């Protein structure tokens, strides 16, 4: 096994799946010659040719709409949107068309498209290159929403997404693209969708985090450990459908939960997780479910460090829960 970056793992998944299945195609702005603005598709044009690696005009409606048609007619499109902040022109195609194709045709047609998009902050991108939009898609029936936090997960989850029968919004934490490295199995490698990962076991409190917040959670948990608090970190990996069993069994054991995400707080996914825990684990809870999140403001440029949750803020929430 080799140590690679998260972006390299994504490139590896694409190349591996394209080799395995000739119906897998990649499309988007700059994905060809340029290899994508983050180089996720580097080298694919050369290997698989312009028929399967398609530089499109600058039009997100076109990219998503065309992908839907490709999928309905036998291809497996993996579309890249340069930043998740630029999907919105295609929002209608995603929430009204892609997500509902199976339901409205009673399964006669499906739109198994994978939409990859760099997401989240921490790279001085201002609000148009930093937003965390997962809640919009989780709220839309019919979509699978995935966010990896390690190179191996990135490869395994993306491969599963490409092979799956449902449309997938694959959000990539761009802050981790080149800042995390890890062992990634060579060749075909799958991580099943819908199954979470226990990042670190612990008995006193369950901390749920995904994407770029997983390393933040790990730092906070290490600090809590030095105060004698055992934090169990769960990375759901697939945000929706959620691995509720993993969360439920952990919270039943620890009796405490904190959700950590960088998206704004109100109607963020943390609100849903908190409600689920409250519904399912009420009698086991020793403290209210805590939330550490971004603020309900547009993502700020100069103040992004203060906007993004950090280990200190997370630790304060852990302490508050322990002291309740």
């Amino acid at each position, binding site marked *: 096994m080799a140590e690679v970056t998260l972006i390299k793992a994504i490139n590896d998944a694409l190349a591996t799946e394209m080799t395995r299945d000739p119906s897998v195609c990649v499309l988007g*702005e700059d994905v060809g010659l340029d290899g994508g603005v983050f180089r996720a598709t580097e080298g694919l044009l050369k290997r698989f040719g312009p028929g399967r690696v398609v*530089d499109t*005009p600058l039009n997100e409606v*076109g990219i998503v709409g065309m992908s839907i048609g490709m999928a309905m007619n036998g291809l497996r499109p993996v579309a890249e949107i340069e930043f998740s902040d630029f999907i919105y*022109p295609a929002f209608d195609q995603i929430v009204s068309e892609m997500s509902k194709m199976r339901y409205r045709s009673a399964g006669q047609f499906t739109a198994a498209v994978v939409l990859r998009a760099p997401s989240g902050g921490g790279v001085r991108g201002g609000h148009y290159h930093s937003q965390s939009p997962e809640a919009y898609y989780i709220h839309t029936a019919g979509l699978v929403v995935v966010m990896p936090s390690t190179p191996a997960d990135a490869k395994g989850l993306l491969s599963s997404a490409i092979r799956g029968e449902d449309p997938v919004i694959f959000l990539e934490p761009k802050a981790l693209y080149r800042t995390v490295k890890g062992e990634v199995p060579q060749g075909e490698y799958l991580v099943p969708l819908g199954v979470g990962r226990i990042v670190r076991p612990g008995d006193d409190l369950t901390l749920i985090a995904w994407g770029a917040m997983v390393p933040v959670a790990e730092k906070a948990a290490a600090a809590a450990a030095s105060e004698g608090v055992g934090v169990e970190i769960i990375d759901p990996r697939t945000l929706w459908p959620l691995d509720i069993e993993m969360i439920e069994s952990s919270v039943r054991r620890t009796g405490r939960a904190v959700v950590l995400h960088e998206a704004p707080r109100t109607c963020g996914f943390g609100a849903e997780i908190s409600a689920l825990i409250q519904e399912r684990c009420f009698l086991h809870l020793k403290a209210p479910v805590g939330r550490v999140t971004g603020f*309900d*403001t547009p993502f*700020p*440029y100069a103040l992004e460090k203060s906007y993004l949750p950090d280990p200190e803020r997370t630790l304060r929430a852990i302490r508050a829960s322990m002291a309740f």
Partner: protein
Amino acid sequence: MSDPEILSVLRPDGTADPAHDPGLSDPEMLSLYRHMVLLRAFDEKAVALQRSGRIGFFVPSTGQEACSIGAGHAVCEGDWIFPAYRDHGVGLMRGYPLAAMVGQILGNTSDATRGRQMPNHWCDRAIHLVSVSSPVATQLPHAVGAAYAAKLRGERIAVLTTFGDGGTSTGDFHAAMNFTGVFRLPVVFFCENNRYAISVPVEHQTATGTLAEKARAYGLPGVRVDGNDVLAIRKAVGDAMDRARAGEGGTLIEALTYRMGPHSTSDDPTVYRSDEEVSAWREKDPIRRFAAFLKGRAVLADPAAEEASARETVRKAVETAESAPAVPLSSMFEDVYSEIPWHLAEQRDSLLSGKG
């Protein structure tokens, strides 16, 4: 590529074609030149600031100065400007101060927009320079709305909106052009066809031979102009703005130009274009071309001295702006709504007290 007439004024021999000369005075032309030089000096400094980690990002306009400055000069008081992120020159020409630009890219308290946005995303209500957005071409329908409002009030103004060749592929472009035609609105669509949308060449944005011809489908005139010729840009945009102010409706202008540098400080253009192509365009440098003309008319004495003075102006502006303090934390929660609601007040207080 079919090639309808491309409006051009500055001839290779250093003279101007009298048939299309916009007829500017010598001081006006010198001012155009100085703004082009200042714009380039600013771009070079901003890229250097990015490379040394003092700002996060920058989008240079090097090679396209004739477009920005020529178009900016055609804007009159009362007109509105809806620019793309690469067109800081239009604002500069309209009197958006260099100090404000420098402040914006630094994002500290010298930034009138309070460090909210990435570099290149300025605005100034006083000169109707509208806030720049990152998503491509979203400003085009806004230009239409502003033009509609002005028309409804009987104001004789024009609205200028600028964008790249990639922008013509978006739905916003088509919506905006269509509305402008239908409502006969005073909008000038100024497309700087610099041949690439990041790495994707213009041939991959459209199957039409020109971008200007798209205007026909919406009932607007389409014009092509030499984008490295500041006098030709001034003429084309000036005529279109005059037509718009006279109530004769909108125009689509396609300026044929080239971005000599990268798309942004995050881009490596050597991946998708050849050295020969870049050097061929370098020969057509809009600043050098205009300098030759002005020297021929004895309007300009010493281009090197002009460049040195522009660099010094920029250096001083950066020095002043860099000494401004960081934006205060509490400002993050302001301007989200007209008044701060309970949940933001709670979030602000918890952040400021260190309890959040």
